[in-house]
């Protein structure tokens, strides 16, 4: 089933009445790489399962151009999927697991063999091709799951956290391979990941879900620099979420304050003077400066490679997280500042809706 546009129209799935995914409307262009992001349990896997046809929709429809898809059984949609829990065929060797889909398409034996071998090489399991899934390590199993899905070169690939059990190096390699495959084969990909960096580096567009509802759909840059609400911000790594009050306002530039703390920032949605807002700042956007900024005391320093993660507290007891290549010691007094463009003010009461 190939398509130019894949359209999800109000896709909703309930579990015993409680919503797993609510009203997902999204058009995916052929060749796009879409990443689904969101906290654990937000409905990412549910969305993939609905797309794949593994879960019937409670409401809504899915269209491939003008063909209605959601009534077709999964095997007639011709999509590929990497399952979050792998779902490998326990009675088949790695090789047979990967070849299975090709055999289902009745490809000539030689081609099955060739493509299976390629996929095995892709996921670096040459040595393990004859093992059963039960004899593999977790990461090896995950790679079989990836190979089994991509070997089919399906029109749409659905990947549910496909790299979560791989080590950093392999993850990077696999990520590059997946991107390469996506481009060279002209696949359309919907990708679930909990790794922001992965999402940002791979995807053309991101969909952020929370409690089954879409929070924001946009390019990586949009999400990163302009999260639509504080939940997205929270999720996108704005670890400092401070409850402040709007004390001055010029355009969308606002002054935010509480006690000692005073910051200049940018309002993401219209706010009024005196509003309580949530102010989001990423740890890496907070800088140590010499003076004339927010004073705080270092409490915890965590070694993180070239940088350290610092937890500091202002005189008022507000906790701040920052990352810095400098190494302040616990107890030190520091001064912290941030670029107003990177200080985002969100209305505190914004609902779940995007």
């Amino acid at each position, binding site marked *: 089933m190939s398509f130019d546009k894949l359209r999800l129209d109000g896709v909703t799935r309930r579990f015993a009445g409680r919503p797993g995914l609510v009203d997902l409307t999204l058009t995916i262009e052929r060749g796009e790489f879409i990443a689904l992001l969101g906290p654990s349990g937000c409905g990412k896997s549910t969305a993939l399962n609905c797309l*794949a*046809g*593994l879960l019937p929709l409670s409401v809504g429809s899915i269209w491939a151009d003008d063909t209605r898809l959601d009534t077709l*059984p*999964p*095997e007639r949609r*011709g*999509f*590929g*999927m990497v*399952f979050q*829990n792998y*779902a*490998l*065929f*326990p*009675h088949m060797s790695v090789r047979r697991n990967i070849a*299975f*889909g090709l055999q*289902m*398409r009745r490809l000539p034996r030689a081609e099955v063999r060739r493509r299976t071998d390629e996929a095995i090489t892709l996921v670096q399991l040459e040595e393990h091709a004859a093992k*059963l899934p*039960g*004899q593999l390590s977790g990461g090896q199993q995950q790679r079989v799951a990836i190979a*089994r*899905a991509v070997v*089919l070169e399906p029109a749409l690939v659905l990947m549910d956290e496909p790299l979560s059990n791989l080590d950093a190096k392999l993850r990077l390699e696999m990520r590059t391979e997946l991107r390469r495959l996506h481009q060279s084969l002209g696949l359309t990909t919907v990708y679930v990941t909990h790794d922001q960096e992965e999402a940002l580096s791979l995807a053309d567009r991101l969909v952020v879900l929370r409690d089954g509802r879409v929070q924001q759909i946009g390019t990586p840059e949009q999400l990163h620099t302009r999260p639509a609400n504080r939940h997205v911000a929270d999720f996108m790594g704005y670890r400092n979420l401070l409850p402040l009050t709007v004390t001055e306002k010029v355009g969308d530039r606002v002054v935010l304050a509480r006690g000692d703390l005073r910051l200049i920032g940018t309002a993401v949605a219209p706010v009024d003077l005196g509003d309580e807002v949530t102010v989001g700042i990423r740890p890496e956007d907070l800088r140590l400066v010499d003076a004339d900024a927010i004073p705080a005391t270092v409490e915890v320093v965590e070694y993180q490679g070239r940088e350290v993660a610092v937890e500091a507290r202002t005189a008022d007891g507000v906790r701040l997280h920052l990352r810095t290549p400098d190494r302040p010691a616990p107890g030190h007094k520091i001064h912290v500042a941030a670029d107003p463009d990177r200080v985002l003010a969100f209305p505190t009461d914004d609902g779940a809706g995007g």
Partner: protein
Amino acid sequence: MRRGLVARPAAWLVWGLVAFFFVNLAGVIGSVVVSSFGTRWFDTWLPQGWTGGWYAQAWQEFGLLSVLLVTVQVSALVVGISVLIGVPAAYVLARRSFPGRRLLYLLFLLPILMPPITYGIPLATVLYKYGFAGHVSGVVLANLVPSVPFVILTMTPFIEQIDPAIERAARMCGAGTRQIFTRILAPLLVPGLLAASILVLVRTVGMFELTFLTAGPDSQTLVVALYYSMSAAGIRAQQSVDAMAVIYTTMMLVLLVVALRFVNPTQLVARVKEDVE
């Protein structure tokens, strides 16, 4: 996984009981086998003499060669067909919920519960009417009546045990329902299929009433001859009944061994995930 010392007494008890069971079982079987080869055996440990005559006589009297062939044919067909029909039905009953599911379950229970006395004669009438009874086909059809539900009932829990995610994965690979059955479920269900088949086999080979009611002169199975030799009017030496029983058991054993050969015998206890050690 190593078992702690605490498990020892329980283990010993279990093995002790198993051993006791085997010793007595060996006695039960042995006494029949010995008797079937004995000339006369009165109040002694062993018969006075040995002979194969009882077998020769039984073989000849019942034309056992053709009876055995019919038996093998009937039981193979019944096992094959009931698995083919029963497993898909068991699959639906295990995996799906739909209105009328319980009623259907009851419907499948009934043929197992109801003694053939209730339905045997009318069933045979139906089968005679449409020209099946009197031939192997009629015997097979009649035996399928309890066998199909039997397969359904035994297979349902096996299917429940299989993670549906595996099936979903197969669908994502483009496998249709048929391929799911042949390529995914069948291999995973091997222990269950084997158990169900063996039990259907045993029940079919031992099914006297329905077979007798629907068999023609050329489609009797061994159990009819066996019951005749055991319980018909007239004088029979105990040894000849013993010989018949041994023939019956030997045939079953051969069928069992063939069945186990057919499917790799280790799969009787095979599992999806390997145990450690």
